């Protein structure tokens, strides 16, 4: 934010970029081969709503579009809402490229309707060798990725920070990685 934004206390929409999402498509091979992480065939994209008629209209059209896309596609999408009010599209499909493309399609749609700044994250689930979840999360506002690894035993919201740091360092050549750890926002209780 610039000096004048601070002086006037005004907010400007962040320049949203969904293009870096595709970095994960290319990084998938490395994740699979050298990190022993396999795509779980599940992903999600989350955005915040706006309480207005234009937004609801966009959402309805987007829902129809995704239903249509799911019928003609090995990748399927369904809408879901979490208990913090976050609006999701949950994606399912064995083709990893298909998941990334579909996530990109959703975000592009929001951006085109002027709601790009409502996009929060796209989350891709991978499984480690003991088939525990490792989530790679894309932050639209920062155009960067970060890992999110919930501790398997804990229901009280603990993350495996050591594993996350390890993954982040190992993948920093392949993925645009989020540098500020305070921005590795947790996403608890995912349905996938």
């Amino acid at each position, binding site marked *: 934010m610039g000096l004048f934004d601070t002086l006037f*206390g005004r907010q400007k929409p962040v320049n949203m970029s969904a293009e870096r999402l595709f970095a994960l498509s290319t990084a998938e091979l490395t994740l699979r081969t050298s990190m022993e992480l396999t795509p779980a065939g599940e992903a999600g994209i989350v955005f*915040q709503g706006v*309480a207005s008629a234009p937004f609801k209209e966009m959402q309805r059209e987007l829902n129809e579009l995704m239903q249509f896309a799911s019928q003609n596609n090995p990748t399927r999408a369904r809408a879901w809402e979490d208990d913090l009010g976050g609006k999701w599209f949950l994606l399912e499909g064995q083709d990893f490229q298909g998941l990334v493309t579909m996530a990109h399609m959703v975000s592009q749609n929001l951006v085109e309707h002027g709601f790009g700044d409502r996009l929060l994250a796209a989350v891709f689930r991978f499984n480690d060798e003991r088939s525990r979840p490792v989530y790679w999360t894309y932050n639209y506002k920062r155009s960067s990725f970060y890992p999110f690894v919930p501790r398997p035993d804990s229901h009280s919201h603990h993350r495996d920070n050591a594993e996350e740091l390890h993954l982040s360092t190992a993948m920093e050549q392949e993925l645009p990685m989020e540098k500020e750890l305070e921005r590795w926002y947790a996403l608890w209780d995912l349905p996938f």
Partner: protein
Amino acid sequence: MAKRPTWYKPDLQLSARMLLTMFLLGAVYTIFLFILFRLGVSAILLLVIAAVILCVQLFFSDKIALYSMGAREIDESEQPQLHALITRLAAQANLPKPKVAIVDTSLPNAFATGRSKNHAVVAVTTGLLNRLSTPELEAVLAHELTHIINRDMTVMTIAMFLSMVASLLVNMLMWAGLYGGFGGRRSRDNEGGSIILLVWLVSLLVYAISFVLIRALSRYREYAADRGSALITGAPENLASALMRIEGTIQSGRIPDRDLRQAQGVSPMMIMPALKGENGLEIFSTHPSLEHRIERLQNMQRQMERAR
């Protein structure tokens, strides 16, 4: 790059008002300094003292505020829901996740403190957690996050800088006057006495004018934070209903007096003025009236419905 449509428009009027207030404040301060130097007051020592106090205030603002409010930092396991809410809002606001603190009191209020995004703390009272619904709580937290984004702690501290010098002068000269008499007991020093009286009057005037301007600026920052809250949550009506609920609780007078006095110092950074006495004239208060805040939120709502 082609300009994309957005679902909200900037509030140019609010920016213009802030600019005017800051300009006037700057003008008053410049004139004040000019007069001080013309009257031959060695204000340097005073400036240094004020600067030190302000730096301390700025750098320890988070600790001072938390301490004076009796706030206690909490981690994720203690309040998972609150942490999850703040995480989500910080992600939406493109802000590093701030620390979270809780104040044990039935007074429903919240405040943000810290000099920068990376030293920020958001504190809420248990009264707030108990009384508000999740969307309302979210709106209040988003208001506080906007204070952090806008660096209101720093902006207001800087705005108060010379006002504080003026107030120091007023107090010091008054005590000096009471004990020594203006100009001292030596009768030949009459001219010095009138200069000191002049400095005292000028300082008093500067303090009075800057007080009103600073309060105006504070109210505009509150409007901006309300706006920011609506832009983060996407729902201005949630903040409106939260504000009404908080106001209702404060007015009904169920709040112990001790809390009111404790809360005094941090008032400008709170969601609502903590003092019941502050429902006097709007030009003397740190927060706009509830009616005005709600009116603005409703205007935003209307504008969002039309935006295409």
